[in-house]
């Protein structure tokens, strides 16, 4: 019953609404940062806001298949928009870090090479690029469904690296990044066929 009404409500929502909402939200955050609305250290606040939202969307994207399989909630229509939006927020997160935070090409490069948590963050971003580029119907046709699916499995390592990136940058033992890592690991584990059959039966 509840699943049905959720699905019915979701059917009324067009996928492009996700792009619009994300663009409005990202612009609004930038505006807040520029006008004092994000506290006294807006660079860090904006960087973290974009990064965390991107991670949330990646986790949501990973949840689409299990949500349908195990709970019957159908978000498939939104998956592409969720993924592409996540990519653009990762890009915004990177841009704030590079341009507003680190501010110099040599320091950016030094950080990517020398700081492991930044290295894996960059790796995650790099893994997402082919996925974003091929997130259109033409690419699915060109690559063929099987190859396209295989390529898009790159989101698994990207998600894991993103979650580790967050855990690694935290000072001390903090709860929130652990929650993202735990969710990511859980959602990845659900992809293992053995676990799937056990849960489905």
């Amino acid at each position: 019953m509840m699943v049905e009404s959720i699905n019915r409500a979701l059917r009324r929502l067009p996928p492009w609404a996700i792009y619009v909402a994300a663009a409005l939200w990202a612009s609004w955050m930038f505006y807040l940062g520029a006008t004092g609305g994000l506290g006294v250290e807006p660079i860090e606040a904006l960087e973290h806001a974009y990064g965390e939202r991107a991670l949330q969307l990646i986790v949501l994207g990973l949840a689409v298949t299990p949500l349908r399989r195990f709970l019957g909630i159908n978000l498939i229509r939104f998956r592409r928009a969720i993924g592409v939006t996540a990519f653009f927020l990762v890009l915004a997160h990177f841009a704030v870090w590079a341009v507003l935070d680190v501010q110099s090409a040599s320091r950016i490069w030094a950080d990517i090479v020398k700081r492991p948590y930044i290295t894996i963050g960059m790796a995650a971003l790099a893994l997402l690029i082919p996925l974003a580029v091929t997130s259109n119907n033409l690419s699915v046709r060109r690559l063929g469904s099987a190859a396209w699916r295989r390529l898009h499995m790159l989101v698994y390592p990207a998600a894991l690296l993103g979650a580790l990136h967050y855990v690694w940058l935290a000072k001390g033992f903090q709860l929130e990044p652990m929650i993202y890592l735990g969710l990511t690991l859980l959602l990845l584990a659900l992809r293992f066929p053995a676990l799937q059959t056990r849960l489905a039966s």
Partner: protein
Amino acid sequence: MAGRYRSPLTWNDVTPRSLYLNRRQIMAGSGALLGAGLIGNRAQAQDLEPNTWEEITNYNNFYEFGTGKDDPARNAHMMTTQPWSIQIDGLVDNPGTYSFAEIMDGMTVEERIYRLRCVEAWSMVVPWNGFELADLLERVGVQAGARYVAFETLNRPEEMPGLRFPVLEWPYREGLRLDEAMHPLTILATGLYGEPMPNQNGAPIRLVVPWKYGFKSIKSIVRITLTEEQPPASWNMAQPREYGFYSNVNPNVDHPRWSQATERRIGGGLFATRQDTLMFNGYEDEVAGLYEGMDLAEFF
């Protein structure tokens, strides 16, 4: 008869003390207190424009109240700071539990405008009010064998929600070598901008060691112990590779996860530029002698 005239102005319209105290006048006044030491350092006078009250009290690391920078401002009001006492023990002539009033009795509170450099590579300039730690240590009488000073922060879970989660091993602990503790730059601060210390900044009394990363300047102190051995320090215990016992500000020794060569001064907004971090946070002339002959990359 009262109440005939109602002013359209409220207390909200009164200019806060932090604004009406002309910052440059504060600087001129405290320049004398800072003493001749800073004169040798070129071009640092204009570097010492204090951050605003708003900035200093809304961007804090005080993990006992949460790990977010605004958590302390939100949660620290829960902490009871009256009554307050500090247990002073270890290798001292007059050990005991001293009330806040007893500690303040006879102390000369000065204004000290210091740079504050966080290990996370951001910085502020803070106009502290406080007295030299050496004055207190001299009063309680440091015994001959003492070589270090250990400090402890209040550990009261019912008033400090951050203590529920083991971000660090509580209570928060820090330590200094005795000569660092006795250095005239080292103060116990009890206020800022001439106001009593806000809770989120470590009320009612905290350490300020301006040439070390901020986490060494332990807040809301309840215990001071003179020891012979180097005392444990919380961040050093948690990650000895990342946070050394000394933790002197040093642009040439990076944190394993990030560079310490530059810093961002809080208050510059979204488009603030980074600035170079100074050796010993700009207090090299005053404190470099403490570490003569030491390899600062090894004793970081």
